[in-house]
């Protein structure tokens, strides 16, 4: 490292010198793109796309991932702060704009999801912190006339001969140096923030109402839009009389958009009231002839049929059947679900002078930008996207029809627009976790080994609908025809050739099955599908872990021992099951309370859960859940704990209540009275045990969810002898 000489100016120029400061090209991949997405402010030092260090020693962190409650701002600030030697709470954290430097290394696009953030950023963001600290030390050494090895750092200060100098003192010199690309990283023994518990860095803002969510954005001249959509997805307007709505107070515009009719008014409540005055007539679509019973009939027929794609075929299931001492066959059902994040979908868009500015909390700023571009005709480089805190997402905010809507409206009416969905819009016009019918036929030998595992799932494919939803935003330059062709190819492929991995993930992989077959048959009725927390694992775990319990009980084997026997090739999961089993053995449930066990591997993390339930007046009550998790190094153990707690509550809502029914093709449920969410008086106590296996971090946002439904169902069996194979769990009385 040295002061840059003249010969390096060419490089510098291509990296971009902006304002008084210096911007050095640097990205997670190490290959810098010019120009950098951020500009120095007031003499700030911008060593890379993630940091700006000001002369007053304030340090801004441009967070590349989106905060939906999972604690990613705390987690990523911890990673970069560890190596930069900055207390994560001291950062001024802002959400990054759209730029390839902010791509999720696990996805190569700027998306947040799949429980990838800690795993994907663990080394890259630490490296960014380490490189920046090294260049600050080098600058300090020059200014203080000392050698770099005579300097230490301590939380935003350089320590030299017992004196403390703020990092900000050296930014001018640092800006003239080239940062190293591979400064040494700390050993785990030296961690000061990683694997330490301290409060979330967004807790004060969120406890004082000062955290800004998308719905809180308010810009000058902003008008408010409400959209009326067809009760049956996909139906277009046949006719509508807009005169009554137009005559309502405050209403400025009533226009048709691709999803329905938009009412624009000066205030939200005015738009909402006026939208009630519309009485649109909708065209008929095939989905309009479906209801829950006819839909279920289609699933049953396809389950009985021979159609399907073979998704896994190992060993010989027939030979496994012959070798079995006993066999079991059972069918499991899980329904359509909405995500129901507490903040309904919303977006603010301002289009002026050929440029656009969008404010919305999304799981993909890149897709949001692309959708505004696609539907406004404005080039992406002229579209600024401000991401905000999200009031929950759980997969929902990767699907951005509300961004399309706000773009269509703002383009048509030439006003800054805030679009807000109602809760009814959210439940009835959303994107859904697909329903699934799953059948498993399994055999077991005298030693408690599973000799055969023949599983079939009938249901929709989230992967195809994700392409359908995301390609237009991620590739705004691609024509509709090309995208339709690509989606069509994907659909044909997963229907006839290769199963969508998200459709069957988790249905057999955890256990040492020698003879396995997994078949998948696609059925879809036109409801748009989406990732929903834990995706395929959210339902395959229910079938898999219920069947494991059924097999163990049929064979007279302890269900925990049975799982240990069948996870010999999966030591990390085996260890989690063993620890949870020891905890379970020590439990002494009170009279009338029963225990159920389940374990599942998802998003590279292993989790086992024990549910303690009783039956009160014919209803399942869950009193306590104990969760054992191995997610490698817990970047912040308390955030890991919180994610397990939250996933358990989310999964419990689905296990006990979650259900969407179709009536005439429309979703019958509409709000929290008929799509209930677990409340405090129904919530169990949760104890989380983190197993520190010392490996690099793995996912935590989703893996706590899959075991809870089967753990509760298995406890219900212990309590009542009733084997409930449908979600939500309902006892026969």
């Amino acid at each position, binding site marked *: 490292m040295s002061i840059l000489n003249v010969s390096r100016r060419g490089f510098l120029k291509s990296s971009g010198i902006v304002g008084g400061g210096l911007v050095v090209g640097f990205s997670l991949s190490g290959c810098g793109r010019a120009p950098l997405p951020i500009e120095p402010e007031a003499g700030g030092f911008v060593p890379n796309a993630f940091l700006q260090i000001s002369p007053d020693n304030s340090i801004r962190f441009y967070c590349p991932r989106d*905060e*939906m*409650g*999972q*604690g990613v701002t705390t987690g990523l600030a911890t990673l970069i702060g560890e190596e930069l030697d900055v207390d994560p709470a001291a950062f001024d954290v802002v959400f990054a704009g759209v730029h390839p430097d902010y791509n999720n290394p696990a996805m190569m696009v700027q998306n947040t999801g799949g429980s990838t953030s800690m795993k994907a950023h663990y080394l890259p963001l630490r490296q960014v912190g380490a490189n920046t600290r090294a260049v600050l030390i080098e600058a300090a050494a020059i200014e203080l006339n000392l050698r770099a090895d005579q300097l230490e750092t301590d939380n935003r200060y350089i320590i030299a001969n017992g004196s403390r100098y703020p990092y900000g003192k050296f930014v001018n010199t640092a800006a003239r140096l080239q940062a190293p690309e591979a400064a040494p990283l700390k050993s785990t023994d030296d961690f000061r923030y990683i694997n330490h518990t301290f*409060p*979330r860095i*967004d*807790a*004060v*803002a*969120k*406890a*004082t*109402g*000062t*955290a*800004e*969510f998308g*719905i*809180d954005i*308010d810009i000058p001249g902003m008008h*408010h839009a409400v959209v009326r959509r067809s009760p049956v997805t996909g139906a277009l307007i046949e006719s509508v009389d807009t005169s009554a709505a137009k005559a309502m107070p405050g209403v400025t515009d009533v226009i048709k958009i691709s999803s329905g009719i938009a009412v624009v008014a000066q*205030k*939200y*409540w005015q738009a909402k009231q006026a939208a009630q005055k519309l009485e649109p007539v909708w065209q008929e679509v095939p989905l309009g002839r479906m209801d829950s019973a006819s839909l279920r009939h289609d699933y049953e027929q396809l389950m009985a049929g021979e159609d399907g794609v073979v998704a896994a075929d190992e060993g010989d299931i027939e030979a496994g059947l012959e070798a079995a001492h006993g066999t079991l066959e059972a069918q499991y059902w899980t329904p359509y679900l909405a995500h129901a*994040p*507490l*903040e*309904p979908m919303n977006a603010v868009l301002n289009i002026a002078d050929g440029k656009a500015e969008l404010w919305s909390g999304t799981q993909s700023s890149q897709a949001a930008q692309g959708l505004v571009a696609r539907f406004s005709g404005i080039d992406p480089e002229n579209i600024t996207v401000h991401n905000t*805190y999200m*009031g*929950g997402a*759980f997969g929902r905010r990767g699907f951005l029809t509300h961004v399309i809507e706000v773009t269509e409206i703002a383009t048509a009416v030439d006003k800054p627009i805030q679009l*807000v969905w*109602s*809760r*009814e819009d959210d439940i009835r016009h959303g994107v859904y976790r697909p329903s699934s019918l799953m059948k498993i036929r399994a055999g077991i030998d005298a030693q408690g080994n599973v000799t055969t595992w023949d599983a079939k799932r009938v249901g929709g494919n989230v992967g195809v609908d994700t392409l359908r939803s995301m390609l237009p935003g991620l590739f705004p330059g691609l024509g509709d025809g090309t995208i339709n062709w690509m989606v069509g190819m994907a659909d044909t492929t997963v229907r006839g050739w290769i199963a969508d991995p998200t459709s069957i993930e988790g249905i057999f992989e955890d256990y040492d099955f020698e003879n396995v077959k997994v078949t998948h048959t696609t059925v879809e009725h036109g409801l748009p599908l989406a990732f929903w927390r834990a995706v395929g694992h959210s339902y395959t775990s229910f079938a898999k872990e219920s069947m494991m319990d059924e097999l163990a009980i049929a064979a007279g084997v302890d269900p925990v021992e049975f799982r240990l026997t069948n996870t010999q090739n999966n030591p990390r999961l085996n260890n989690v099951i063993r620890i949870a089993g020891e905890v379970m053995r020590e439990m002494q449930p009170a009279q009338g309370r029963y225990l159920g066990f389940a374990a599942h591997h998802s998003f590279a993390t292993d989790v086992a859960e024990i549910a303690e339930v009783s039956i009160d007046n014919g209803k399942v009550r869950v009193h306590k859940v104990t969760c054992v998790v191995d997610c490698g190094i817990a970047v912040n153990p*308390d*955030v890991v704990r*919180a994610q397990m*707690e*939250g*996933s*358990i*509550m*989310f999964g*419990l*809502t689905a296990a006990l209540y979650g259900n969407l029914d179709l009536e005439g093709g429309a979703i019958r449920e509409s*709000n*929290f*009275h008929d799509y209930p*969410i*677990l*409340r*405090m*008086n129904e*919530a169990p*106590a*949760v104890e989380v045990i983190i197993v520190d296996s010392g490996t690099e971090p793995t996912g935590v946002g989703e893996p706590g969810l899959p075991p809870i439904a089967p753990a509760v169902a298995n406890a219900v069996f212990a309590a009542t002898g009733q084997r409930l194979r449908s979600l939500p769990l309902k006892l026969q009385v």
Partner: protein
Amino acid sequence: MIEFKLNGAIVSTDDAPDTPLLWVVRDTFKLKGSKFGCGAGLCGACTMHIDGAAIRTCLLPISRVAGRDVTTIEGLGTPENLHPLQAAWHELSVPQCGYCQSGQIMSAAALLADNPSPSAADVDTAMAGNICRCGCYGRIKEAILQVSGAALAYDAAAPAQETGA
């Protein structure tokens, strides 16, 4: 024109009398801490205090608020001057997405003003109207119980006290 007290100040609005208080506070007075979650009084995200009682405001017409004393999360405490519940929310890392927390804290503050030493069952009952989709219930309950028993009569103008646990 409807007049009422908002966080200690007298305000007036010519919004239509059937406009719910939530939207008047958010759109007219630009206080965005109180949230819209369901529009049906089912989730509690919009909870404010009216004459000290925790009330769902997404359905409550402002005509019913004339002359009343309304307190929102902004009137309870600020980042520099935290209410004891807010300090406990931070200390215990209660929020995840955070969207419901204004409503949770307003319900909790009303509970503690009414019953400074609630039992766990009292907390369950008082908080059952507030949905947390992220499932932070255990921490919410712990934070309330941690603060309970401490001096709680709050005054928006007075400096916040430290948590009493």
